């Protein structure tokens, strides 16, 4: 990839570093491993969701169902562990199968019925939220020794920070996503479809398989995020994670991925997540600010990054016009 496409990624990275330095200057305690470890743990489920969202947005689509899928996964796990003696690992496999299949089905509908992803995944959002309610309207606690064991796994860093399993899982997801996007044909096809689905098809990209795969990845990762969320809260609740899909979209855009598809990096999404987490941490440290300030700052950031994308777009067209003009003259 060339320098110009990486520019938004660098800007996101610079924004994060700058914000972190400013925060640490005001509250030196923020530079501790404890804060960093919590940043990873608290945002693990959102981070994993945003990876799936990056695939979807890179392909020029959108997935509004992920918040509901997380809630469904939580309730499903809680109910199944309460009412049956199935081992959590089996339940995990089962729920991942369901959510991946659900994503694949949405991808199939989007491709074969030529429906806009917005509407299809909106329907998916209502469907999954509804299914979660059907399973249980109340918060169902999860008590299982396997869960206790998973939650007790952590690496204690010098300075007292506890790096937990869920944070590691998120990091692993990002590494895997980078490999898939840049080092496999499927990943290249995701970018190709995002550039122009029609041209990609003319160039031999298997459009059906790729579209279905993309939404399956998003659904499956939302399922994984749901599992992580139950490890985080030890409960399943059908009203949980409302609007998480929008947070994930925000993280992807702040990470420098073009909403129109075809350009962006999953690494950017990672820093998008960290920036959003950092704002929340700052508000906790400050103590006097309402937590709604998080939303306000994210709104402002989003707007700034959209303007940035627009500006880069203009700059590129201007450069190309210059290029062709000089070509024509020579």
């Amino acid at each position, binding site marked *: 990839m*060339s320098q110009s496409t990486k520019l938004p990624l660098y800007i996101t990275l610079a924004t994060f570093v700058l914000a972190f330095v400013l925060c640490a200057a005001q509250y030196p305690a923020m530079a501790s491993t404890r804060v960093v470890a919590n940043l990873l743990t608290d945002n693990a489920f959102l981070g994993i969701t945003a990876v799936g969202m990056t695939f979807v947005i890179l392909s020029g689509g959108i997935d509004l169902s992920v918040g509901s899928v997380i809630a469904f996964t939580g309730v499903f796990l809680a109910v199944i562990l309460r009412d049956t003696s199935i081992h959590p690992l089996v339940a995990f496999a089962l729920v991942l199968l369901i959510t991946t299949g659900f994503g694949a089905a949405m991808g199939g509908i989007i491709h074969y019925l030529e429906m806009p992803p917005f509407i299809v995944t909106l329907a998916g959002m209502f469907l999954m939220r509804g299914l979660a309610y059907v399973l249980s309207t109340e918060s169902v606690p999860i008590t299982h020794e396997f869960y206790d064991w998973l939650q007790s796994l952590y690496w204690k860093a010098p300075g007292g920070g506890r790096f937990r399993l869920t944070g590691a899982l998120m990091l692993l997801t990002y590494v895997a996503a980078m490999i898939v996007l840049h080092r496999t044909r499927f990943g*290249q096809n995701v*970018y190709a479809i995002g550039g122009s689905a029609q*041209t990609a098809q*003319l*160039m*031999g990209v298997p459009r059906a398989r790729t579209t279905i795969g993309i939404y399956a990845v998003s659904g499956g990762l939302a399922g994984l995020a749901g599992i992580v969320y139950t490890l985080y809260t030890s409960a399943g609740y059908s009203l949980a994670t409302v609007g998480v899909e929008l947070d994930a979209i925000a993280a992807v855009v702040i990470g420098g991925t073009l909403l129109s598809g075809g350009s962006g990096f999953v690494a950017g999404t990672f820093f998008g997540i960290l920036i959003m987490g950092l704002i929340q941490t700052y508000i906790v440290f400050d103590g006097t600010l309402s937590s709604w300030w998080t939303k306000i700052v994210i709104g402002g950031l989003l707007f700034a990054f959209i303007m940035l994308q627009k500006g880069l777009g203009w700059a590129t067209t201007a450069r*190309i016009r210059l*290029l062709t003009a000089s*070509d024509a003259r020579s």
Partner: protein
Amino acid sequence: MAMPEPVLHARGISKFFPGAIALDDVELALYPGEVHALLGENGAGKSTLIKCVTGAYSRDGGTIALSGAEIDPRDPLDSQSLGIGTVYQEVNLLENLTVAENLFLGRQPMRWGMVDHRRMKREARDILRDYGLDIDPGRLLSSYSIAIQQIVAIARAVELSGKVLILDEPTASLDHDEVQLLFSVIERLKGRGLAIVFITHFLDQVFAISDRATILRNGRVVGTRRLADVSQTEIVTLMLGRQLEAATHHRAHSEPGELLLSLKGFGKRGSIEPFDMEIREGEVVGLAGLLGSGRSETANVVFGVVAADQGTAELRGRGLRITNPREAIRNRFALCPEDRKTDGIVGDLSVRENIILSLQARQGWHRPIPRAKAEEIAQHYVKALDIRLASLDMPIRLLSGGNQQKALLARWLATEPELLILDEPTRGIDVGAHAEIIALIEDLREKGMALIVASSEMEELVAYSSRIVVLRDRRQVGELTGHEISTKSIVEAIAAEDAA
């Protein structure tokens, strides 16, 4: 001379569209190492034939043999894997990927189950060197000019197919040097034994590069000729089925009428330098100049597409301010833009709806034009301009390029403008339609309409202009009237500024 076995032989190809026969028993034989031009007017069936051969359309009859074996491609992808590659005028590659990624999409070199980017770049560089390009394949495709993108597309098509290469209007958006670059690539491929189909509207280019030509008219083959044996006139006569009028001369114009529009110090910073211009009824003002000299910019600023930020305008002696096209239309101006695909036609609307669009817009949408009236207007212009179509209800995107251009003209003529601005009215249309549009311009001038015509074809401007304004570097550098008008004097006017 005994010809070798044809590499591609299509016989008896027929294709029917509702209400029309698009192809009727067409034969096309391609031999290895030849460039074969496919010629015909718009709507003659060139594109349809290509689409039938590559499987984009399913044909209604006929056989296709590739290297002697019968084939039946399902779609262009299938025909590509069989050996027939196609490259279109609009480059069908992905601008958001790198050059190397475009070349190798779908067949990337793999190493331990992963895409080997380093090898891919190295191989891409080697392949492109064979085409005379020494560029960095790791950069985005969009960072290169259209000509280079086109060659990358050709390289990809040849790598994937390797027997037949179809070039559909490859030179339409290239300038002279870029065309030469493309031709050198075509020569190389010819040397490698490929059979190349070359579709274009530029007859000079056909004679420069092609060995043989198959000429289509109304869905039938009217002849296949060795180009060494025929003259351009002969080819044109075959295409049109009639003799083209001898070279156009500058004819004495009838006396122009009243002063219509007068512009003083009119301009827009960063777009076009201030200029003075007067135009009378029954006058054609030609805008001449090289690509990027400000022809389109002048047309756009007069019509208010970009609002002028300096100077004054007077319409019939009264002050006038035009800041957007709506005001221009209200003052009975009309503009046919250069790029009809993006700025002009509304592809999915019917021909009738497209024709009455501007008239309706001027009337206001709360006063719809009755269906019968719309039908009558559309019918009138379809007849007057000889627009060839199956039905007024068909979507305009199904018309051929020349017919789309005429429908666009009809749209503006329907508003009965006093000033008609045409930006490249003959771009991308064939000689027949070309002559008709020139005749139409002269006819409108005789009827007293004022016209401003921007065109890159000087001969054409010389033929119909009452005066010619010469532009260079977004600035008016000269004006030619009466006997001064000739292609030579236009070139001199452009070059004189060069010396200064």
